């Protein structure tokens, strides 16, 4: 049976070492470039016409814009729109990274926790830097919810700080976990099918069961791919809201 973890292996396409650090071009980097390229091509090509009444493709590009703009406005208010470029880039990168990973044989960029953690740290760093820039020390009021009795305040502040630090962890863990678990499940069922076919006529009949399962799981994985990109985006917006309005939450 094929190793279900092998699909996540990094392969150096162009090895390159600078001063002992590894700067090689891997299959992961290649698929990141593909995701960015596909996103750019999709948005640029579909909007070249700029028709007042959009065609199907232009409408797709406009819908993705409207959808994310609506999400940002709802979670972070109209002021949050200054983060729209960041949020939209993250959404498109995660979405296309997930969807390209669904092509058989392709590498799933978001199945490596270092990639999702880098995205989450980018978001949380933006929140901290912008929050302190805009509100100064008032921003730290985020950690002390108003209207609490003095006696339990120290405990709550510690918990709030840990909770804040746990956000990039949960953000990256969720995307990574979903993508990795889904792809392993697909590979495991596919492995069952292959192993059963090897067992003769009865095995071939039995192999239809895992193949049904693979079909259902593939559809589910497409749902997860889109939904996780959305969840990552909406949580990004909620966290950015803390940078804009500390104290309301």
């Amino acid at each position: 049976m094929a190793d279900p973890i092998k699909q996540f292996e990094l392969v150096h396409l162009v090895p390159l070492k600078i001063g002992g650090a590894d700067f090689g071009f891997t299959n992961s980097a290649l698929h990141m470039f593909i995701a960015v390229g596909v996103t750019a091509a999709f948005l640029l090509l579909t909007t070249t016409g700029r028709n007042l009444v959009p065609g199907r493709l232009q409408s797709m590009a406009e819908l993705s814009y409207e959808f994310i703009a609506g999400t940002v406005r709802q979670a972070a208010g109209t002021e949050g729109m200054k983060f729209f470029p960041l949020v939209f880039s993250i959404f498109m990168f995660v979405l296309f990274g997930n969807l390209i990973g669904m092509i058989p044989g392709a590498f799933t960029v978001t199945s490596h926790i270092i990639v999702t953690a880098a995205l989450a740290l980018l978001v949380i760093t933006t929140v901290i830097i912008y929050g302190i820039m805009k509100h100064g020390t008032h921003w730290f009021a985020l950690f002390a919810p108003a209207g609490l009795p003095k006696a339990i305040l120290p405990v709550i502040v510690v918990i709030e700080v840990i909770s804040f630090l746990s956000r990039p962890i949960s953000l990256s863990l969720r995307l990574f976990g979903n993508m990795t678990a889904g792809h392993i499940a697909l590979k495991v069922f596919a492995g069952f099918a292959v192993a059963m076919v090897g067992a003769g006529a009865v095995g071939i009949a039995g192999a239809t069961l895992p193949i049904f399962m693979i079909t259902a799981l593939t559809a589910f994985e497409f749902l997860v791919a889109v939904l996780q990109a959305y969840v990552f985006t909406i949580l990004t917006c909620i966290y950015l809201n803390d940078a804009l309005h500390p104290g309301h939450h």
Partner: protein
Amino acid sequence: MVEDGKRQGSDQGPPTEADLDARRRALESKLAAYEQQRTSGTAPVGQAAVEPSGLVKLFRFSADFVSGVIAGALIGWLVDRFAGTRPWGLIVFLLLGFATGIYNLVKSAQRANRGG
């Protein structure tokens, strides 16, 4: 779809100035309503209500809980490493991490109930 009927009705002759004026006003009020909705952010456009399946919810909430515990453990480990208080930092912060996990869970459950 009322406008469609009106347009067909006025197909007999060229539209009068009053006709056009009424249409302009209708468009203006529609645009104003849209703009109001856009800036207030109460009901965003194209926001389809996606009801996530049970498995998706499980992943969402479990990540909230687990991340609290991991963050607590990480902080405890770092405190022990730099303050040399092994094993007390890990014990205290792991317990606080559990509390944080539950706290995160309750907060995101409240958010889910508000429909956000």
